[in-house]
Every structure is written in structure tokens, then in C-alpha cells.
């Protein structure tokens, strides 16, 4: 199994632990990732709300690179995959958009490269049995809630993955590691997206709702697959605590870090020492490192 790897901007910066753990887990599962040469930003929400043609063209440029590599694309980032899939859908549904995009990116792209979320590949193609075979350290004491956020399952016709209101894929992967996967009602609520800087008040409220529900249910961590969700819940956690007078001290782990830990991979190789809220401390308290 081989994919063109599109890390996306966050994985080279604020989410380096997501990049590290993705690479480690894929090696363990025999998934070959070939990082795309000279990939560019997908445009995220900013392009989407500014110029629709630009919002299709930035991902299309990356899809065209993968097309030349003769590979489908994977990224662990829910936002990047949403933008790549949306561009594909629009290019495939409208000849006019397809032509305009080709003009903008100065090359033709036929809309045929598939973009898949790494979570989807692990849950659907690799499967729980193979994941379990790789688990050498059961994460017995760890209680995890799986948080999918907005874009893993929505919009339904773009994502085409898992149950749109009550997804299970990440919960199943977490349970496969031996951790206790706690069911909860906040799997697909929004974290406040990119309002962290322009309207911090909004994000602090939404992050507090999510963190307090996780805490009430006894979770040690929230597993995520989106660098923006992770940032709102972890990097802004101190501000949330200050604003709402709560103490959470809850590291927010990428689902690949949890998997990697159960595969017996060194915590530092997974980037677990990179968290703003001390993840190594939690794992030590739980007797997992």
C-alpha cells in the first residue's frame, strides 16, 4: 500500500507530533508514504470564504502533483482532506470549473486522484484486526473520548465516510489499543474552527463545553484528527481554564499518537514530548511509559 503523502502546513509547524506519529504508525502498518514534492497550502477556510476559484485551485495543484506520481493522496489532517475532496467534487461535477481550474494551475487535472483521510484508510482498509495484531502494549488505564469535529464526516456527500452524526471509526481504533473508548455526545460538535484569533471569546466557550463534557465523563484525553481542533482544545486550554475557572490539565492527543504508543513505539519518536499540556506526565501517571 503506497500513497502520496500530503502533510499540510500545520504538520510542519504547530502539529509536528501529528506528522511524526503518522509516519511511525504507517511504517508499522506497511503503508508507504511518499511525501509530495513541493506541495502547497490547501487554502483552508480562508480561500473558501474569499475566492471560490482559488479555493478549488490550491488543492487542485496538489492533486495534479499526485496524479503525476501515479498515486492517490492521503493526509491525516481533516481540513486538508476536506479541501482536496471538495475541489475534486467540484471539478468532476462541472466542466466549466474543471477548465477554469486548469487555466489557473496551468496544467490539466482530470479529477481522478482520490484523496483519503488517514483515519479512513486505517479503519476501512487496514482494519481493526490488523491494528490489534500490532498492539504490543495494551493501554489499559487510559480513558479516551474520540473527537471527530466537523469535517471528518461533513458534508456527507464530500466526506463519504462513517456515520455522519455518530461516527465510530476512531472509537474502534482507540478500543483496539486496549484503551477505554468512552462514548459521548460531542463527537461531531464544532470547536470554533479558526475563530481563535479573530474572536477568541467564541472559541473559549466552545472549547470549554467540549473539555468539561470530556472531564465529566472521566476521560484522560480527547483523541483528534484535526490540528485546528487540537490547537483550540490544547494550546488555548490555559485561557479556557482562566475564563471559566476550571482546571482541566488534559493533553489532547492525535489518534496516531495513541495507536503508536500501543504499538510500542518510543513516545518521543511519536512527538508526545511536544505537547503544550504535558502528555508525558499523563502517560507516566497512567503507568504507560
Amino acid at each position, binding site marked *: 500500500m503506497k500513497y502520496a503523502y500530503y502533510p499540510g*502546513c500545520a504538520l510542519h509547524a*504547530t502539529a509536528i507530533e501529528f506528522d511524526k506519529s503518522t509516519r511511525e504508525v504507517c511504517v508499522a502498518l506497511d503503508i508507504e508514504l511518499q511525501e509530495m514534492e513541493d506541495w502547497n*497550502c490547501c487554502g483552508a477556510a480562508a480561500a473558501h470564504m474569499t*475566492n471560490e476559484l482559488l479555493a478549488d485551485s490550491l488543492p487542485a495543484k496538489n492533486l495534479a502533483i499526485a496524479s503525476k506520481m501515479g498515486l492517490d493522496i492521503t493526509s491525516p489532517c481533516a481540513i486538508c482532506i476536506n479541501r482536496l475532496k471538495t475541489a475534486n467534487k467540484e471539478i468532476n461535477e462541472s466542466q466549466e470549473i474543471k477548465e477554469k481550474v486548469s487555466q489557473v494551475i496551468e496544467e490539466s487535472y482530470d479529477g481522478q486522484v482520490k484523496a483519503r483521510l488517514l483515519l479512513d484508510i486505517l479503519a476501512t482498509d487496514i482494519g481493526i484486526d490488523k491494528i490489534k495484531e500490532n498492539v504490543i502494549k495494551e493501554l489499559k488505564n487510559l480513558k479516551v473520548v474520540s473527537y471527530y469535529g466537523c469535517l471528518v464526516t*461533513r458534508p456527507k456527500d464530500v466526506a463519504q465516510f462513517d456515520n455522519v452524526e455518530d461516527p465510530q471509526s476512531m472509537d474502534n481504533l482507540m478500543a483496539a489499543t486496549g484503551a477505554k473508548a468512552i462514548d459521548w455526545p460531542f463527537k461531531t460538535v464544532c470547536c470554533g474552527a479558526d475563530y481563535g*484569533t479573530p474572536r477568541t471569546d467564541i472559541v473559549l466557550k466552545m472549547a470549554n463545553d467540549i473539555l468539561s463534557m470530556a472531564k465529566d465523563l472521566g476521560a484522560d484525553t480527547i483523541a483528534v484528527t484535526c490540528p485546528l481542533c487540537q490547537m483550540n482544545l490544547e494550546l488555548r486550554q490555559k485561557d479556557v481554564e482562566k475564563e471559566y475557572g476550571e482546571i482541566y490539565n488534559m493533553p489532547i492527543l492525535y489518534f496516531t499518537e495513541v495507536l503508536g504508543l500501543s504499538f510500542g513505539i518510543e513516545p518521543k519518536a511519536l512527538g508526545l514530548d511536544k505537547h503544550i499540556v504535558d502528555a508525558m506526565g499523563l502517560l507516566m501517571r497512567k503507568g504507560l511509559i
Partner: protein
Amino acid sequence: MKYQVSIFNDLTEFLNEIKDRTGYDLKECYQCGKCTAGCSTCFAMDKTPNQIIRMIQLGMRKEVLESKTIWLCASCETCTTRCPREIDVAKVMNTLRLIAQSCPEEVKISSEVSDVPLMSKIFLWTVKYTGRLYDFGLIALYNNLSGNFFKDMMKGPLMFKKGKLSILPHKVKNIKAIKRIFKRAEELSE
């Protein structure tokens, strides 16, 4: 009577404008309120999503385009997923943002939400000139342009220490190609 007729004219005009741009006929909305019930950010909005749709039905173009709501919608797609009339409400919201930005002489964006489009513009500048998101540049530019000079600055040193923030951008090799993408996308969208 005269008043009603003028409303009626505006009414079809705005509805048609939205239909042309999104493909959705908002006359089909029967105001069940489901979009609002599940809306992630409606606690902060001045008009709820179903009110926005109703105002479009009534042709209230200026009021809709000047609402804070369209800038507070987080594009979470919950409304779109749940609307029983299969209206893509999130797409309508995004289209309203695009229309509002395209006519700055007519539409005044409230200062309580104007940092949202500002942030997007800065994000895209960093992409245009480096090919990728440049976090340090983004925050520095935002703080200067918004007047919030110290916003999020306390997080910098910690992020830096963890290797999560770099002072210099990670540029793509073929910057010229990226700049041309921006230029052509702007030209062809006109």
C-alpha cells in the same frame, strides 16, 4: 400597497441572486428551525440561521449582508447535514460572505466581526508569498493590522521551544507558480 410591491420586487431579486450562485431555491425553506437548533455558533449571532433564510425570502438584502451572523458561521456544516429541505445552508452563508466582500461600497461589515475576513486575507497573503501558511507572519501581521498588538504573543516562546513555531517561513520552491495561481484566480473570477 406601493410599499408591498417594492418589497415584492426586491424579494425575487435577492432570491434569484442566491439561486444563481448556489443552485438552491430558498423558497423551499419552510422555517422549521432545524438549522438553528444545531448551529454551533448561533449563541454569538445577531440573527439565527433560519432568520437569515427568512430575511432572504423577504428580500432584505442589505440587512442580511450586514448581519454579524454571516461572519460568525463557522462552516461546520451541521445545518446542511440536517435541513429536511436539503438546502445547503452553509453554502448559502459562504455565498453571503462572498457577496458582502464584493460590494464594499454598499455593505458595511460590523467592527465586531471584521477581523474574521481580515484574518482570512492575511492567511492568504502568507500563502501567496510563501506557498504555505506562515504562522509567525500571520500573527505578526494580524496584530499590526487589527491593533491587537499583543494578541497570542505569550504563546510564542513556548511554541518556539517545542519546535512548533519558526521565525522564518517554510517556502515552496516554485513560489512563482503559486503567485500566478493567485493572480489568475483573481482575474478569472471577475
